[in-house]
């Protein structure tokens, strides 16, 4: 058989011009695009997506906080400083009352009556200053659950009872919102990863079977996916998570919720996997492998999976925000994780109370943590999707 491929068109499409420009840029940097392995090409592509790069850095910071939340949080998230109920975010100054610039510091802040509005609030006493320091001693904890220490990322040397530094204010019990958000990151952000992992396992198995075998198996799986997606998710999740026994410990509720979210989440993964499988089934290298007598399992695992792995990773990244949002919504309704567990959704329950919301709008800060992480995942996902196929023209 002769090569039946059409001769490429001489005029390049805009895409080709763009990738040509990319190649040129990479080449001019002394990096050889023709001998670079695929992961390097992907990295070069990804690097071009500015928002994705910024978002990736943000996500790394967020996950660092989640892993080392005891270290990042200045206070124990459950410690309540009753003298700081509804305290607003502590103002950090770099200029003192005399107009001199100093290292970042805070003034002694105390509950008092505002002389102008005659309302109870927090007033700064400009005679007493506390400089903010890094690596200050605070409450005892075990780093990574192993190393006992009491060093925290930042804070003032004084105990919280005397003068607290509340970056995002304090809630109605005088608990530090920043510390609580840092702790909440651990559950909220990890739940996204675990949920997506379970969805992936289900999605790859079912989507793979569906796309690989086709026929009635495909129809059955596709109908199931359509069926699951016609049920409104929140009412379904609400019903299922309400059935989790109330006396379950936090870890079990956590996995229960994750599994419930994955029951819907896998359908999205399965679609992506099936799509790639269908496209790849027709590829020459799959036919070649089959003619060489490779088993079906080997074709799938050794030939097909590596070539669509990058697509899967991109799709996974885009699926995480949905999980985070779902957990937040459920916990917010009181049907997901429950106090004493701390997740962003649990923290937002505080905002349901109109009095809390009006007196201390900073109870909404966990919501912004959710928004930032969701957007960051979306941008990184977009960047990865663009970079997923480095040979695409």
């Amino acid at each position, binding site marked *: 058989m002769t090569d039946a491929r059409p001769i490429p068109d001489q005029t390049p499409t805009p895409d080709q011009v763009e990738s040509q420009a990319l190649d040129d840029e990479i080449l001019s940097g002394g990096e050889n695009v023709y001998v670079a392995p695929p992961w390097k090409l992907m990295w070069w592509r990804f690097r071009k997506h500015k928002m994705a790069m910024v978002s990736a850095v943000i996500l790394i910071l967020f996950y660092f906080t989640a892993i080392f939340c005891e270290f990042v949080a200045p206070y124990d998230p459950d410690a309540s400083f009753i003298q700081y109920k509804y305290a607003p975010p502590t103002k950090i100054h770099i200029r003192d009352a005399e107009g001199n610039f100093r290292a970042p510091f805070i003034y002694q802040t105390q509950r008092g009556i505002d002389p102008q509005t005659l309302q109870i609030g927090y007033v700064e006493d400009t005679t007493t200053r506390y400089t903010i320091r890094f690596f200050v001693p605070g409450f005892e904890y075990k780093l990574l659950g192993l190393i006992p220490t009491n060093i925290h990322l930042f804070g003032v040397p004084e105990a919280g009872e005397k003068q607290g530094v509340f970056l995002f204010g304090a809630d109605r019990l005088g608990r530090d919102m920043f510390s609580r958000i840092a702790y909440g990151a651990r559950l909220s952000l990890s739940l996204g990863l675990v949920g997506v992992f379970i969805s992936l396992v289900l999605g790859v198995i079912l989507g793979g079977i569906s796309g690989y075998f086709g026929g009635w198996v495909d129809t059955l799986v596709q109908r199931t996916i359509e069926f699951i997606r016609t049920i409104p998710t929140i009412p*379904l999740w609400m019903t299922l998570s309400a059935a989790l026994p109330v006396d379950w410990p936090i870890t079990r509720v956590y996995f229960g919720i994750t599994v419930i979210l994955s029951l819907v989440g896998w359908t999205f993964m399965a679609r992506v996997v099936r799509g790639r499988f269908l496209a790849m089934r027709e590829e020459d290298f799959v036919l070649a492998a089959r003619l060489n007598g490779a088993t079906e399992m080997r074709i799938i695992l050794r030939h097909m999976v590596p070539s669509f792995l990058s697509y899967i990773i991109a799709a996974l990244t885009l699926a995480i925000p949905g999980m985070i949002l779902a957990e937040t919504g459920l916990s917010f309704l009181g049907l997901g994780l429950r106090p004493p567990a701390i997740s962003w959704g649990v923290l937002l329950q505080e905002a349901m109370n109109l009095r809390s919301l009006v007196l201390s709008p900073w109870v909404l800060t966990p919501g912004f943590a959710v928004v930032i992480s969701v*957007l960051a995942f979306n941008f990184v996902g977009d960047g990865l999707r663009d970079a997923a196929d480095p040979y695409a023209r």
Partner: protein
Amino acid sequence: MLVYIARRVLLMIPTIFLISIISFVAIQLPPGDFMTSYVAGLRTMGENIEQEAIDNLRERYGLGQPVYVQYIKWISGIILRGDWGQSMEWQKPVKDLIGERILLTVVLSLVSLLVSWFIAIPIGVYSATHQYSILDYVMSIISFIGVGVPGFLLALIIMYFAQTRLNLNVGGLFSQEYINAPWSVERVIDMLKHLWIPVLILAVEGTAGGIRTTRANLLDELNKPYVELARAKGLSEWKLIWKYPVRIALNPFFSTVGWSLASLISGATLISVVLSLQTTGPMQLRALTSQDMYLAGSFLLILSVLTVIGTLISDILLAWVDPRIRLEK
């Protein structure tokens, strides 16, 4: 066309059957037999309930019998007698409680769907025809915010500003005097005055996706030869865009209407709880937390079935517009 509709309706039956099973499982999920806890609850409140009445109720729901018997009793009650079971918490038949709330949820979701299209389509078309313009970037950023900010957070923020800046309580769907009033023209007008806030919040969530879909699809269409041809023939740009490529680009909108409805109902549930609207959300939440399972299960069943019917209607409309679909096997 009739054959197509008939086939679609037949296909719907297994779906609805599956939904009913899931709802039934949901009713059965909480541990223990709900009648026992119901009776225990009544007794602790000092109320006396006759053994005969308990036996009657047990018989009615088939408690103590195999699960499939219970399912058949439950589903045949719904289909044959319109009996959705008894709400344990409200001491009323479920069907008396849910009618108006379902209606309001449907109204809220449908209005939001229409509003989100109304916003998303023109913006999406503009973004596609003016690709890489400043407004295109602005719109992209706005739609990203729509993706990232969950509706209930938006509702909380709006509530905070309404409360502190305007001294306005935005909760609820009716003014005080209309809450329990029978339906009348005034009541509908009053509802519309309250409806716009939740509609706007829900529409923003839906719009973001809508803009991106329209933009992406239209960009694919704009490079096709028929557009070039129409332009070469001297058709005005406005007519050219709206009459041909936009119509094709909007197809996915209508074919995924079922999923949009499902996600709108989901979003509406959360927002309704925040804004305490008289829709299904708050009542379902309460039913779930107090394990009033017939009520909770009925909501799941009805909302899902409504989504399926919505999808059916959209499929029929799509087939009516596009002959390729109705003739396909």
